Every structure is written in structure tokens, then in C-alpha cells.
């Protein structure tokens, strides 16, 4: 309209931020549905109603007073994750692997004293990690033990799978692999790797690390492409059903694969980022437009949508 985009950018059918906001988020994501995805506790409850598995919720702290006697109430749960319910971008999350007399042991071996831990909970409650700075809740949930499939290509942390779902149809997927630079967090702008996943097969493609294409993990040196994601069809089905669950037309569904429990829904993002296009070396627009052209019967059941996507997005 105002600027003529370069030919190659349009040719690749890359989805830009403005179009994502105006044509997809604003059109298909009603504001009234946002609270269910912005609050992880609400997401958990909703997922339970729709038979979508999530890491089990151990404990919820809503008031500053609740922190007294926390240790006792956690009982023999010595392994858990603390999260702000309304946090964004992975901030405020602490992974605890053990409780010892000297304090809480973090996954990377650091010890957090009881006082520091309480301080962190206070921070969470006063809302410094929350999206709008509102008062928040701290949730304690089961620590995920990642499936070993990605252990050769991740540095600590828990790799997670992001699937963009448009009107219930899985459009594009990637797996985010933590690196040393990302401090074990599966967060792309902190330096995690994003590897594209082929929708039809569930095999990883090339990867992107800080907007550079890579073929091998920078810390472990192992190749990142060609890895078969386990339980891929279950993952796709969970992602597709997130549409019925949230009523949101354009979402990013984040799933982790637990060694024991299989795929678990971690969270749903109503404003999924655009980096997935870099990980897949493919623009989103073409696929989104194909979905808009699909016959209505495709959208009836989650299973139909996955089948259609599997054929179309080879």
C-alpha cells in the first residue's frame, strides 16, 4: 500500500506483523476468549474439560499469606516448576528439582535460599511478570521430564513444540531447542534454536538460531534435522482440539513431550510470533490462504482437519 515490499518477500508469502494482527488475530481471536489463554491456571482447567493433558497442578498461591508453610503443603513433591499464571515469554519460571535443608535446588544445580524463593513468589504475586502488570498467582506444577528424543540437540531445559493452528487446522510446527545461550530456556529470542517440523510426517527440517540457518546444535554439535517427533499424530490432534477449547482462530499451541506421560499441553498463545516461518524456511500466508479456501466439511472435526492438513502441507 505505502511501501512496495521486495519481490522475494512477497514471493515467499511471508506473513508480516501488521497482517497477522489485522487479518488473523483481530478477526479470529475474540477478546473475550483471551483470559483463558493468558492465565495458565484457566488454561489448565479448560484443557481438563476437553481431555487435553497438561502437567498436573500441585499447588496455587494466590495471596502473600499463603506462602507461610509452603514447604509443608508441598509435602513430598520435591520436584516442580513455579510459574506466574499470567507470565509471558517464559519469564518468572523456575524449575526446582529438589528441596534440601539449605534451600531449593534449581535444575542447573544452583541453590535458592528459602528467603530468595519467597521473594520470587512475592514478585510473581505482585505481577511483575504478568502481561499487564496486574496482580498474579503463582502456580506449582509437575516438572516435565523431557522425552530423550531431543536430548542430543538440546542443552539442559525442556524442548517444546510450537504449532500454529488456524481455524483448528495445524498450519506449521517447530521444535524449540534450548541452548547454553538461552540458559536452558526454550525461548527463541533468548537464543534457543527453532527447528521446523514437517506437518505431514513430524520430522524436523532445518533450524534457525538467532536468524541464522543452522544444521547442527551449537552446543552439542549434533544434527538437528531429520529427527522424528514421537506421538506426532497425538500432538497434532491436541493442537487441533485447542481450537474447540479456546474458540480462538489463530493460536500458537505449545506442547512438551514427557518421558512418562507423553505430549502435554503447556500453554496457548493468542499472539503467536512469526519466527516459525524462519524455522520452516517458509511463509505462513500461502497455507493460511489455502485453509480459507478449504471446503467447510474439512472444519467439522479435529481429525478431519489434521487429515486435510497432512495431505496439503506435505
Amino acid at each position, binding site marked *: *500500500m*505505502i*511501501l512496495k*515490499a*521486495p519481490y*522475494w*518477500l512477497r*514471493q*515467499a508469502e*511471508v506473513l*508480516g*506483523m*501488521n*497482517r497477522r494482527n*489485522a*487479518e488473523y488475530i483481530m478477526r479470529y481471536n475474540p477478546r473475550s476468549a483471551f483470559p483463558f489463554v493468558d492465565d495458565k491456571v484457566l488454561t489448565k482447567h479448560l484443557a481438563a474439560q476437553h481431555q487435553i493433558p497438561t502437567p498436573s497442578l500441585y499447588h496455587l498461591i494466590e495471596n502473600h499469606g499463603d506462602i507461610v508453610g509452603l514447604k509443608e503443603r508441598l509435602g513430598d513433591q520435591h520436584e516442580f516448576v513455579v510459574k506466574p499464571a499470567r507470565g509471558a*515469554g517464559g*519469564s518468572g519460571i523456575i524449575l526446582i528439582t529438589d528441596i534440601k535443608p539449605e534451600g531449593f535446588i534449581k535444575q542447573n544445580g544452583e541453590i535458592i535460599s528459602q*528467603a*530468595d524463593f519467597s*521473594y520470587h513468589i*512475592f*514478585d510473581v504475586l*505482585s*505481577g*511483575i511478570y504478568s502481561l499487564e*502488570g496486574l496482580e498474579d498467582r503463582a502456580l506449582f506444577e509437575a516438572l516435565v521430564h523431557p522425552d530423550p528424543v531431543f536430548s542430543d540437540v538440546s542443552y539442559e531445559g525442556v524442548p517444546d513444540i510450537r504449532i500454529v493452528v488456524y481455524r483448528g487446522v495445524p498450519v506449521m510446527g517447530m521444535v524449540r531447542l534450548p541452548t547454553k545461550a538461552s540458559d536452558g530456556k526454550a525461548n527463541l*529470542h*533468548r537464543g534457543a534454536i527453532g527447528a521446523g517440523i514437517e506437518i505431514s510426517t513430524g520430522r524436523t527440517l532445518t533450524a*534457525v538460531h538467532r*536468524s541464522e*540457518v543452522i544444521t547442527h546444535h551449537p552446543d552439542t554439535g549434533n544434527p538437528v534435522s531429520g529427527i522424528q517427533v514421537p506421538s506426532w499424530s497425538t500432538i497434532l490432534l491436541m493442537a487441533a482440539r485447542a481450537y474447540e477449547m479456546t474458540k480462538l482462530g489463530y493460536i500458537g499451541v505449545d506442547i512438551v513431550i514427557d518421558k512418562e506421560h507423553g505430549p502435554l499441553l503447556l500453554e496457548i498463545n493468542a499472539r503467536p510470533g*512469526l519466527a516459525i*516461518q*524462519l524455522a520452516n*524456511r517458509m*511463509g505462513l500466508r500461502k497455507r493460511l490462504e489455502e485453509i480459507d479456501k478449504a471446503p467447510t466439511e474439512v472444519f467439522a472435526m479435529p481429525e478431519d482437519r489434521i487429515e486435510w492438513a497432512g495431505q496439503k502441507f506435505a
Partner: protein
Amino acid sequence: MKRPVVLLVSLLLFLPLVLITYRIIFLGYPPFPTAPQRAWQISMDARIEAEENKEIMVKVGLPYSRAGQVVIEERITSGRLDFHLLSEGPNHIGLWSGTVGPRAEIIGYRSTILLSSQRPIKTPLPKLGAFPAKMSKVEQDLAKRLVGKWIQLSPSERLRAIAATATNIWGEPPPADQDLRAWSALQEKFGRTNAFLLLFRTAELPAQVAEGLWLTEGVTSIPITWIEIWTGKEWECMLPSVGKIYKGSTNLLPLIFGEVDAVRVSEGKLSEIRWTLNRQILSQWRYHSERIRRSGRLLDLWSLFRLPPEFQETFRILLLVPIGALMIGVLRNIIGFPTFGTFMPVLMALAFRNTGLLYGLGIFAGFVLIGYTARRSMERLRLLLIPRLSVILTLVIFCFTVLALIGSRFGRWELMAVGLLPFVILTMTIERFFVITEEAGAREGFRTAMGSALVASMTYGILHVETLQLTFFVYPELLFAVAAAQVLLGRYTGYRLSEVFRFRRFRSSS
């Protein structure tokens, strides 16, 4: 583009278009409010001496708004005398009266005179007056012999023929020698001006005497006299001494018309009087602001010029803030600039008006750095969110105080104005800067800070364009047009410039 959007945008553009057209055509608004206009600054100063406790009276002819000239911003100095403005026929007379103190009184008059070549105000058609007083049949007959032969000419030609006699050009056939001698004697007896008035009356040209000033820069203490002659469509001026004719109002500034002096004093003595004229270039809006304040038209009654001056200043800036917001929209949605918060740069730009851009940016950068260092070291103290923000706020206020004191010590007004910076915005910016730096790295924090500073500077630049300020002030309906642009921007779904860089990898792969 969606139909409702097109409709809304058209409406938002149509509304100001209609209003502005109406204002320009029917209310005579200036299409370019800041276009320069010729103006004169006139001032009259006089010194009056009188015996103590004696009532004195000074009457001075003053310029007033008439065809071709508008008088604005009049100011009077009257010392301990009373001042009244009188109307005497066509004249506006300033009357100073009262008793003069032991020392002389100084009286004064100042105003700005705007000359416009606009359509003349309709004046009643002047009628041919009586013959000058004291002139007998003998003089009238003489005049008839002198100018009778020109009665067939057009008024303008008649005027020029008579004016030429001032330089002894009488045309063919020349008058008899004794008539010319009688004419010289007549001028001696009644004065040259009155003699010419007789000729104009005889030639059936309406004429009047005027006293006033040359419109040239300088100081004068004696007004000059000329005759204004109606030539059917306009008054033309003739200097009786040389017979020179001037048209329009660009050369002479009349103070008084008729057989009265521009300055009259009773019971006192003017020991000194002088008029000073200075040429000025004024923006048209000043003239219009004056006119609007006097007009009874609906749109003039609801003009921003009706606000008290101290509020006008605020609105001149406020009306441009939406442009700043529009620009932020452009920079963020089309270019892809990162900024702290949405409107933070606009608020910064507004605050920089008091400190100046360079000082503002410097102070801003300094505060963010100090705040960041403090915030980092406070991380260990484990303070809760609100008390922690309060500590930063206190630090910001403390820095304000120190800076203001330094400013006052060294006489730097810019530093003292620091108190007008939005401290809440500064506090939040420090926190945001810290969070971005922690979460996305120092590079991202720096990038965002630079983006914010750049946007603030650009907004500052826009807020300072006087032409824009005045245009929006005269035509506040332009806000609708800004809104139209904002709506259009809101429908921009194309790529951002930053995305061309972000997705540059697709260049090679396609």
C-alpha cells in the same frame, strides 16, 4: 480496502474540506495563516507642559480601521491624565484630559497597522461639498476661468490636470496672465491647500483635506497635509505642494480628515511630539485573530482565538499531538521501530519543549543510565514491585532536584526546567529498560532506547513547526484529516521495513 473504512476516511476528509472551504470563501480566512503580511508599527509620544492645577486637553487624530488598513493591538499611555476615544465625523480622536503634575506628562499611543489589498470596505458615495469658507464670488469666478475648460474630462483626468498646475502646467489654452497672478495671490491669502480645494470644488470633484504621516520608516514631529479627491471609484491623494498623486493606502497614513489639525492642545503646551513608524512583517493569522475576536459569525465565536492567550498556547501544541501519534504509528507499523510504550515518545517530546531537545535527550539518557544502575543493584535487595518502583521514582525526583540546583547555580534555565519532565514516564522507562535488557539482552534494550529517542526527537520537531501549529490552530477541523490518516494506517497490512531485514533469509531461498 473495506467499504466502511473507505466511507469513514472519505467522511473524515470531507468534513474539514467543507469547513475550511467555507471559512476561506465566506469568512475570509487566510488559506496560509503564516504567510507574511506588510504591517506598520506606529507610535506617538508627546510631552505636555502646563501650569499646575490647570485642566488641559489634548486631542490627537488616531488611525483607525478603514478600507485597505486594519488597526490592531492599540495601546495608550496617559500618565495621570484621563483618556477617551472620541468619534468626530470620520475621525477617531484620542482625548487626553486632566491636570498636569509638577513635571510634564508623557502621553503615548501605539498600534500595529496592517495594510491589505483586500476588497475595499463599502464607503458611502461622497457628495460634492460647499465651496471653501471665506471664498467669495470673485475667487469662485477665477477658479471657473482656470479649470472650467476641463469640466468635460473624466474625474481622474480632471484631477491630474488640476494637480499639474502645482508645477505650473496649465495646458492649452493657457489662462490669462492676470488670472495667474490672481491665483498666486489667492494661494498666498488662503493657503495652497484651500486654494486647491477651491479648484476641485469648481471642477466638481469631491475632495477633503487630510493630515497624516508618510508611511516610511522614521521619526517625524510634523504631520503633512494632503487632499483626498474622489475620482468616482476611490479616493486619490494629492500633495498640494508638488501636485503629486498617490493611489491606494500604501504611501500615506491619514490621522485626521477635514479642516482640523491632527494635534490640538488647549490650556497647555506640547513641548515635544513625535511619531515613529517601523515596518514589520506579520503573519496573517495575527490580523485574523483580531478580526475573529470581533466577529459575530458562529465559527468565529467558536474559534480557538477566543480562548484566553495562556490557554491558546497549550492548544497550539495539543492540536499537534495527534500528528505525533500518527507518526509513531507510521514508525512502528510501517518502519518497525521499537519504542518503550506506545505514547511515551510523545510525552517525552512534549516535555522536551521546556528543556530543549539536546538537554532533554541528555538528561533522559543520563536518568535511564543512573536508574538502570540503581535498579540492577536493587535486584539483590528483593523489594516488592510497587515499593521498588517507588524507590526508582524517588531517585528520579532526587536527580531532578540536584539537576535543578546545579542549573540554578550556573544559571542554566534548561536544567532548572527538568522538573517538567514526566517523572512517572521516566520511572516506567527505567523499569522497562531494565526488563528488556534482562530478558532480551543489552543490545535489544539499547535498540529500543535509541528508537524511543529518535521518535521523541522527530515528534519534538513536528511540535515545533510554527506553520503547522498555526494552521491547526486556525483550522482545528484538520484533526479529522489526521484521524483519516490514522484510520488508513490502521488498515495497513503490508510488511514493515524491519521485516524485510528480519526475513532476509528468504531472499536466497526463493
